[in-house]
């Protein structure tokens, strides 16, 4: 299975996403922001980083990159897409996911190992987890506060579209401790924490993040 990793100007964790795809047993295909071409991949990861310096608003400028056009169409018709951190912000800016991400309530960048609970396994990227599974993956951002209006939040919870939630204290003021969400169809997932940095215990706190990539590859199914 071929998984594309998009590089925008200012993408930083694209190499890590690529490594995670390889470790999970997938074939990594790098995609360039300037090419309106998905090279026939079976899934796409929008990696973390500071696309366009995160100037204006995180993800606001990347959203207009040529590669986003085919990506948005493909996502609407079911292509699995995972947005990590900056990638999540880009998905919200592109209206593939509801809500938005704003400055952390404590107004400083925060890098820490974050405990999360997997609340929905009915997505292309979390099927390998057990519902309610507790995982630890790095969180690192300055604008990770998830916000949306009450109606949207109720809808997300009602439809079981909150994918991961923060445990052990809200790190950034996100509404209802939301760390990641999915679209109605479950193929598009966005989250602020970095599963690609929790794929081996030499460079990460755990291997808990590997499951996201194994889910889409079907290389691991829930025990």
């Amino acid at each position, binding site marked *: 299975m071929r998984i594309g990793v998009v590089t925008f*100007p*200012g993408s*930083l*964790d694209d*190499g*890590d996403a690529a*490594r995670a795809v390889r470790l999970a047993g997938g074939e990594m295909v790098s995609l360039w922001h*300037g090419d309106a071409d998905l090279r026939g991949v079976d899934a796409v990861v929008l990696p*973390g*980083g*500071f696309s*366009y*310096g*995160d*100037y204006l608003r995180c993800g606001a400028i990347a959203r207009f990159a040529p590669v986003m056009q085919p990506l948005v169409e493909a996502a609407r018709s079911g292509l699995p897409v995972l947005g990590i951190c900056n990638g999540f912000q880009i998905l919200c800016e592109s209206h593939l996911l509801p809500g938005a991400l704003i400055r952390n309530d*404590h*107004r*400083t*960048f*925060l*890098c*820490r190992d974050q405990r999360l609970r997997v609340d929905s396994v009915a997505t292309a990227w979390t099927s390998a987890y057990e519902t309610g599974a507790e995982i630890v993956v*790095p969180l*690192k951002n*300055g604008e990770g506060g998830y916000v949306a209006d009450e109606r949207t939040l109720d809808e997300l919870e009602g439809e079981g579209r909150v994918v991961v939630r923060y445990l052990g204290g809200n790190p950034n003021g996100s509404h209802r401790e939301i760390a990641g969400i999915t679209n109605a169809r479950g193929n598009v997932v966005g989250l602020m924490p*970095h599963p*690609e*940095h929790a794929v081996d215990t*030499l*460079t*990460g706190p755990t291997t808990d993040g590997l499951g996201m990539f194994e889910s889409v590859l079907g290389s691991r199914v829930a025990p």
Partner: protein
Amino acid sequence: MTVDTVKHAAETPEHPQPWAELGLRGEEYARIREILGRRPTSSELAMYSVMWSEHCSYKSSKIHLRRFGELAQQTPVGKLLAGMGENAGVVDVGQGYAVTFKVESHNHPSYVEPHQGAATGVGGIVRDILAMGARPVAVMDSLRFGPAAAPDTARVLPAVVAGIGGYGNCLGLPNIGGEVVFDPAYAGNPLVNALCVGVMRHEDLHLAHASGVGNLVVLYGARTGGDGIGGVSVLASETFGDEGPSKRPSVQVGDPFTEKLLIECTLALFAEGLVVGIQDLGGAGLSCATSELASAGEGGMHVVLDHVPLRDPTLAPEEILMSESQERMMAVVPPTAIDRVLEICARWDVDASVVGEVTDSGRLTIEWRGETVVDVPPRTVAHEGPVYERPYARPSWQDDLQAAGPSSLARPARADELRATLLRMIASPNLCSRAWVTDQYDRYVLGNTVLAQPEDSGVIRVDEQTALGVALATDANGRYAKLDPYVGAQLALAEAHRNVAAVGALPLAVTNCLNFGSPENPDVMWQFAEAVRGLADGCRALGLPVTGGNVSLYNQTATSAVLPTPVVGVLGVLDDVTRRTPSGFRTPGQTIYLLGTTRDEFGGSEWAHVEHDHLGGRPPAVDLDAERALAEILVRGSRDRLVEAAHDVSDGGLAQALVESCLRYGVGARVTAPVGIDPFVFLFTESAARAVVAVPRSAEVRFTDLCSARGYPYQEIGVVGDAAGTPVLEVREQFSVPLAELREAFESTLPALFAPAAAP
């Protein structure tokens, strides 16, 4: 705008020039006239003044720094691939890899505009590393501020941290270590030293030469604006005082996003072998890049200033030459490669422009609007600046300071006093957790960070297949250096060396940043000379080369100089990073050993500082042979997997090391003061060449043999873990503290001082 051309300068020898305002001395101005055989044009004067400033010319420190050059240009595993003269030295780490690293100061700009000053400090050192042909892989920051509770520290520290984090995080470079130190001596003159480390294959080494007559000179990156005009010479060669704010306009603003593109673009140029020479634009901007490239190469270059892309079209030629706009690089490119170079720059959205070419004229000529405004021998600008033998003498107060030792200070004796002292110590600004600072730095990005704060060293994996990696630590202790600059510099070297060995890495090379007061003050100059002598002798004793560094002088307010602060960075190599040794206790039942000799040494200690606000006496004795033996034991212990945890003992003594090792994973320990050692001395003395290690029972014999074989002193002082129940740190027959209580004391201080206040 009337242009002061070379022709005009020749015709108007008497024309008065503002050489003094530009920081030049009368004799320096006279020498420029003599070199040129006429008065300099205003553009030439701008170039000479900025290039001959202390910051760029090292005119006061040069004669002393020669000592580093006299060291063998050799590391324990091989020859240096590039030595001091270059942007940064290059070290062979094996398997065909080379590593380059360097630490640089951005002190004065960080006082004037803390956020941008610190941010551009990171940007500058990263370009230095990039200019060697290396991919930057990590940064570190060594920070010093006034008293933690002082209002100005509340202005400076959060902004400096946000600046370093904001720039480094956006650049995608993990921050893997550094220091945060508070002392009244840094009030009004904080020290912000940034370190960057880069990795390359041997064959990719690039040096700053403009060679190949007819080759093109390409300026690429950000457009040139009025940023920091004269910033280097003004900001870095005057004392502050209340006129500080008036210098504000000469501060530059950084754009990490552009720098990220600059990195990727530059590495793409290297990868295709398109550049014959490269130079970053830092302080002194184009003046520095053109003159240094030219004098290192064939010696001739012609530049057309009109081709420099400008952000502000009203800039005069002098200003274009002085501008310190960030995120710019200069490359020397064969004509055949120019199209491809411009293509690659365009792919990365990086502005690029051919601004000149390499000539055989032996001169650097610069034209603007069709007229020649600069015509100089480049060496005289870049490498043949003035050199001073500043007078220096041991300060009259040095003896009294050393005489006023800590022996008279009241010491805690009773168990409850020791316990209370421990809790006050670990909560003090210099010993408490740095997490509030370091949590603002991304330590994960690039996916090769094996160890980062709060470990003794940062460790970066260099090769994913072979697990080859490097370790880095920076250290300095201005209090020790004030008491004895020679020994103080060696103690900084010893601590960084120990920190690198503690994680299991073999120390290879040294970089340094020498932060001192005014070289025109003989006391300060003596401190500087002694520190350099100490560091050079120390490196010789440890068999390490100094691969580069940076000197920052004039660190003082109107009234007083900062503590003499030689910041030392040591680079080590791990052939297999999977065997790195972390600092935290993990497995109950393992034996805790204290390695080294414990003496009653409290001169300059944190205990004297925290409990008595006292600075006097002599610093702890330094024994570099012992440090070398200790390092061998720690490296072998890691290689043979005999130690599960190791932590160096330094500021705050054994007590501090034990608290840090317990809190890392929340596992307690029970220790006992060996008979014959006073518990207070056991816990708080800062004797050097010591470390604590946790050893699995099964490895005890082999480990102790390792020490005995080297005749290295070791004492079994306790065990990891504790009688079931809540984890505690217990000092038998004295006291016991629950880890929760230790953590509360250790972690609350910086947030309470600096966390943004909550809204109403």
